[in-house]
């Protein structure tokens, strides 16, 4: 079967061309053309990203922000160009509000350790939700334990949507921060951030958004959302691993103590006293992942060239097609049926453990994730140990969904 020959009409993406941009999609796995449906774990990389990284190492490799020589100026200029691209991508007010971090996890830890330690004390509360990834739970547990603060949790309903009434009732004068995911990695739910930010700001509580699963799929405008912090990873957005972005309102970032000490984050150092650098460098200690930042810039430009609205329309069509196709399979239960969803299809199959589903799909060249997706509280809510999760990216096609459905039928045959 040929994959991707047809584009999905009306979405403005030329899928055959898009797929040709990703070298890995040409390969076979277990003798079959790869169907990569594990994009929520990490996405594949287009040639533009791979080449940008190679070009840096081959032509401009040098350290940033400190050399007067040509290569350093070139590397610094490429590095800072990504900051500008990221600012525009999120519609941040100023590029100094863009801090490069290793990924979403580090972005959250930075805020927990820097903002959290400065503002959270005994008896205070942090509000998260039941659908958070472990990376948006554990940093807050660590902070709360250290500060003798309390972690409060907004519950979800059986569709996988937040209980907004409970959210409103959980906010109070002791709440110091709301930390919430934009899109759930295990369920695909898109949260109504506008309303949550409004509620939190009503109590003068800042909001941190885990955007790891949102930025690859939809336009994100941090000023329109009004959130105070927003963080995402490059590698789920067709960029390299090990690099991500933390956006923060400069009024907040300015007042926050540094997260790590070292080179680049200082203005002057004596053995008695150190004056910290201005934003964003105050939060970028040490030689950064320069190649990663340059690769991230290439990824952002690549997504911009396709148009994130086109990506959203295409992925929405694929998700809708996949949801109705798998729902017809006897014994299959879709976990996560929120009205607003993005690119994630989690499911279980009666009498078959997700791990076994994963192996049998893999034998047919189909990569999905199986397990608890670092969201054990979500699994507990739905009373399952694990799910199988197909997650879609901009290069996935309806033909690939057909192969997924056929492969699930094969699972049922083996376990019949």
């Amino acid at each position, binding site marked *: 079967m040929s994959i991707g020959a047809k584009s999905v009409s009306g979405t403005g993406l030329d899928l055959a061309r898009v797929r040709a941009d990703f070298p890995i999609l040409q390969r076979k796995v*277990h003798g079959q053309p790869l169907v990569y449906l594990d994009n929520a774990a990490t996405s594949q990389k287009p040639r533009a990203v791979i080449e940008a990284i190679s070009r840096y190492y081959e032509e401009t490799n040098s350290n940033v922000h400190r050399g007067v020589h040509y290569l350093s100026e070139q590397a610094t200029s490429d590095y800072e160009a990504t900051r500008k691209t990221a600012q525009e991508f999120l519609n941040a007010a100023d590029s100094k509000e863009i801090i490069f971090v290793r990924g979403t996890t580090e972005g959250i830890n930075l805020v927990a350790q820097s903002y959290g330690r400065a503002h959270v004390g005994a008896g205070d509360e942090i509000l998260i939700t039941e659908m958070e990834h472990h990376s948006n739970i554990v940093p807050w547990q660590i902070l709360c334990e250290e500060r003798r603060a309390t972690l409060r949790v907004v519950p979800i309903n059986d569709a996988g949507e937040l209980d907004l009434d409970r959210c409103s009732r959980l906010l109070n004068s002791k709440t110091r921060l709301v930390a919430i995911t934009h899109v759930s990695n295990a369920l695909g739910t898109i949260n109504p951030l506008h309303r949550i930010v409004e509620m939190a700001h009503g109590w003068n509580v800042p909001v941190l958004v885990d955007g790891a699963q949102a930025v690859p799929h939809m336009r994100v405008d941090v000023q329109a959302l009004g959130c105070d912090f927003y963080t995402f990873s490059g590698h789920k957005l067709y960029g390299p691993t090990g690099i991500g972005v933390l956006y923060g309102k400069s009024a907040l970032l300015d007042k926050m103590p540094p997260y790590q000490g070292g080179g680049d984050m200082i203005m002057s150092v004596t053995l008695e006293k150190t004056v910290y650098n201005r934003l964003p460098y105050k939060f970028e200690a040490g030689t950064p992942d320069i190649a990663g930042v340059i690769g991230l810039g290439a990824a952002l430009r690549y997504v911009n060239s396709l148009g994130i609205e086109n990506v959203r329309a295409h992925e929405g069509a694929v998700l809708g097609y996949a949801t109705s196709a798998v729902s017809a399979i006897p014994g299959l239960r879709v976990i996560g049926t929120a009205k607003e969803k993005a690119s994630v299809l989690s499911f279980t199959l009666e*009498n*078959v*453990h*997700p*791990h*076994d589903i994963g*192996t*049998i799909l893999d*034998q*047919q060249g189909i990569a999905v994730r*199986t*397990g*608890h997706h670092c969201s*054990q509280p979500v*699994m507990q809510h739905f009373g399952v*140990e*694990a799910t199988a999760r197909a997650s879609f990216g901009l290069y996935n096609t309806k033909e690939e969904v057909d192969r997924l459905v056929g492969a699930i039928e*094969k699972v049922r045959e*083996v*376990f019949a």
Partner: protein
Amino acid sequence: MSDLRDLYQEVILEHSKAPRNYRESPAWNRKAEGFNPLCGDRFTLYLTLDGDSIRDASFQGSGCAISKASASMMTQSVKGKSVAEARKLFESFHRLVTGLGHTNGDADLGKLTVFSGVSEFPARVKCATLAWHTLEAALEGKQETTTE
């Protein structure tokens, strides 16, 4: 696709659907929890030791077909064996599922050889050995073990 049938042999599927010794042994004197944090498989193993001999072995819990069938067949295989024999059996079983091959010193694995297909699926070795690691923990008097 023939590889799949090597992994999911009829005997394995049958044990996963109807596991043997799936209960709490009434007179157990050793118990251990086995947990695979990556996939969430979790079993409790109950042993009734009489001196050096394993009088009874049983288990409860949840996991994939491979881990459940392995737990089921492991309890059958070690019942009536001495502690040393059971350990020897695990050693040989481990060689089988990791594809290290059979040596002259290996114990007779009997029907456990149905798990030989696991060696072609490195990601599933931990599923096949979870119950055995739990057995080892129980024999050593530990309360729990994880495979990661």
